[in-house]
């Protein structure tokens, strides 16, 4: 009897662990059983309080920054905003758990890959396409606007800010190695040939790892994707965002070149954040996970704009390409509304979105993020001069015209991201032959397309 009891207990323990956190899964369809009847805007009451969950989108990870904004909103509209701060490490799990438990917040701040391709596509978001009039559509950056709409025409995100992800180099190290001749400090661009020469010189001078193709997880994977895609002009998806195309010959050639390059190591033990830390500490001489927020505050360490820990100068650069003109990965962030079945809350959430993204308050909301406005003007307020007083931000605008296709809205994005870094791990662990690399690329690109 005791034996049976012990076995039952052991079974209970594992079942409980395996099932925990998803127990509400079958409840998900309930959301469709009673969809929120969205009343016409003029008839709907406006709730007096709403909840906002935000990922650390630049300055929106700071409670002090966000509180100043929400307090101003409350003072003007009377609508209280309760804010919860998510991290990229476990934010998705929190949101998904809340969704399946019917406890989602009213508002969420992040990018289209989550709001449109994930939660929107899965039926949890409110279609806010009625918030975009013709003026808005003409003012909002075309790539950002397109990314906020699902293929069926529904909009699940209202864009606020955007940036171009880039890479960075340690200028002092480049000068010491005599490799500063390979970077154009005026245009912040370089060719693959110049990049290879710079790595060669840095490796000859310092040895070790000049830069790492980090692939320990998905953190910062936009950097490795941009590096590989730009190197010989490969693509990640097709233009229609219906298929993953990273198995093209140009990407395989780029992976082979990077694998063979002394000073560039495939490192499956680190992710983007670790790479930034190693670059900031002076271990690496270049970083592939970089953007304006990092340039303003490297490694979030608060030790000075554009400086490493040792005080070396950091120069942001576009990714190398054959002709020196890169297609940079974009970051687009904005607000979306979860469909909690409460028309008054939805109206209040839309009021907040309008206040943040398309009003005279938008310049302040943009500045809070440390990124660039996703539109040229908001209700007559010119947004082109938001960063006029900031030299680094002004310099960084040189990269913005290189913003490439926002392909993160392709179907099966979550699985594709995982397939990408798993592929890099397999390439790094292979013998580096073209066949081995091609096989890894084909296997994981196939996995991404199978989702």
């Amino acid at each position: 009897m005791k034996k049976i009891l012990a076995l039952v207990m052991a079974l209970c323990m594992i079942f409980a662990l395996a099932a925990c956190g998803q127990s509400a899964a079958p409840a998900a369809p309930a959301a469709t059983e009673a969809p929120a009847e969205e009343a016409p805007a003029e008839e709907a009451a406006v709730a007096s309080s709403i909840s906002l969950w935000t990922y650390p989108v630049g300055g929106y990870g700071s409670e002090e920054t966000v509180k100043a904004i929400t307090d101003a909103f409350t003072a003007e509209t009377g609508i209280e905003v309760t804010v919860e701060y998510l991290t990229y490490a476990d934010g998705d799990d929190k949101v998904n758990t809340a969704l399946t438990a019917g406890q989602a917040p009213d508002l969420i701040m992040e990018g289209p890959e989550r709001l449109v391709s994930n939660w929107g596509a899965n039926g949890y978001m409110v279609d806010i396409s009625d918030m975009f009039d013709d003026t808005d559509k003409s003012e909002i950056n075309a790539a950002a606007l397109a990314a906020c709409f699902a293929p069926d025409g529904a909009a699940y995100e209202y864009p606020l800010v955007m940036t171009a992800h880039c890479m960075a180099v340690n200028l002092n190290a480049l000068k010491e190695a005599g490799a500063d001749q390979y970077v154009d400090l005026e245009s912040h661009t370089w060719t693959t040939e110049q990049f290879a020469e710079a790595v060669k010189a840095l490796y000859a001078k310092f040895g070790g790892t000049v830069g790492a193709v980090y692939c320990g997880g998905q953190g910062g994977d936009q950097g490795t994707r941009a590096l590989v895609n730009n190197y010989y002009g490969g693509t990640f998806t097709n233009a229609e965002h219906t298929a993953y195309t990273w198995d093209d010959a140009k990407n395989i050639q780029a992976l082979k070149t990077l694998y063979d390059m002394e000073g560039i190591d495939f490192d499956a033990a680190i992710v983007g954040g670790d790479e930034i830390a190693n670059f900031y500490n002076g271990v690496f001489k270049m970083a592939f996970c970089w953007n304006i927020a990092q340039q303003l505050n490297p490694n979030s360490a608060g030790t000075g704009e554009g400086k490493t820990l040792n005080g070396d100068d950091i120069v942001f650069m576009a990714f190398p390409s054959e002709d020196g003109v890169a297609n940079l990965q974009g970051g687009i962030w904005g607000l979306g509304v979860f469909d909690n079945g409460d028309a008054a809350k939805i109206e209040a959430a839309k009021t907040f979105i309008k206040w943040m993204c398309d009003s005279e308050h938008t310049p302040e909301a943009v500045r809070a993020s440390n990124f660039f406005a996703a539109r040229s003007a908001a209700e007559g307020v010119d947004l082109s001069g938001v960063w006029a007083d900031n030299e680094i931000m002004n310099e960084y605008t040189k990269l913005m015209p290189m913003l490439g296709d926002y392909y993160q809205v392709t179907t099966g994005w979550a699985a594709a991201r995982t397939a990408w870094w798993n592929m890099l791990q397999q390439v790094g662990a292979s013998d580096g032959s073209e066949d081995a690399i091609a096989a890894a690329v084909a296997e994981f690109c196939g996995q991404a397309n199978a989702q």
Partner: protein
Amino acid sequence: MPQTVSPRLRRKETISAYLFLLPSLVFFLGFVVFPMVLCIVTSFFDANMNANKPDVFIGLANYVELWQDKVFLKALVNTIIIVLVSVPVVCVFSLWVASAIYRMKEGPLSFFRVVFYLPVVTGSVAVTVVWKWMYNNYYGIFNYLLKGAGLIEKNINWLGDPKYALACIIIILLTTSVGQPIVLYVSALSNVDNSLVEAAEVDGATNMQCFWRIKWPQIMPTTLYILVITTINSFQCFALIQLLTSGGPNYATETVMYYIYYTAFKLYRFGYGNAMGVILAIFIAVLSAVQFRLAKES
């Protein structure tokens, strides 16, 4: 003459007993039995997160797919390796340490118990952060020491190299697993009837004979408990993987528990993840049964 209890009193006592049990029973049913049943039921569905797509009954399709899933099979092999290595090592090591310290005075005994129990009560995140630093490819202490001693020429990427990653995870798991067994063994060995040992020694028994013939049988229930909980803990190795390697490099540290998490929470395939949970539970049940049987025979 035995006292007869009236049926009314017996009923009253029975009701009281059940009322005392009720709070625990509610929690047990709500947090153990209900999720368990839900886990089994959902494993027969194509359950996902799409609010517009109802769950579809697919019978055993999830279970069939499991055995064609290369990553799951790799995860299963890795999990079994972790169990096969960590369970014997934890048991033998903790018994050895307990044997060495259980006769010490209170002060040194407490010191050793604290030393070995500390990693158990320290948060997983703190433990993994420290280990991650020690394993670091560029400035980790292991590479520093090994290079200093002339044992290696180039830094080893401990967590980034498929050859070493799983072993590194197992080492961390061992340090966090031995604390409780050591405390239990110290307690069990202290409770062994010393008069039996003294009598055997008078009869000329060696230390080894005393251990295997007298102490070992008396600590067998403790050993069995340690075997079962270590097996279950090893099968459920998750936090270390999530915090250190995400199952990589190249699936070298993928475990079933991590793959369940990944499938359910990253790919939103709840049904498939639950099917894995059921299979894992069956493995644990079978292994526990084998351990009970062997313990009974010995």
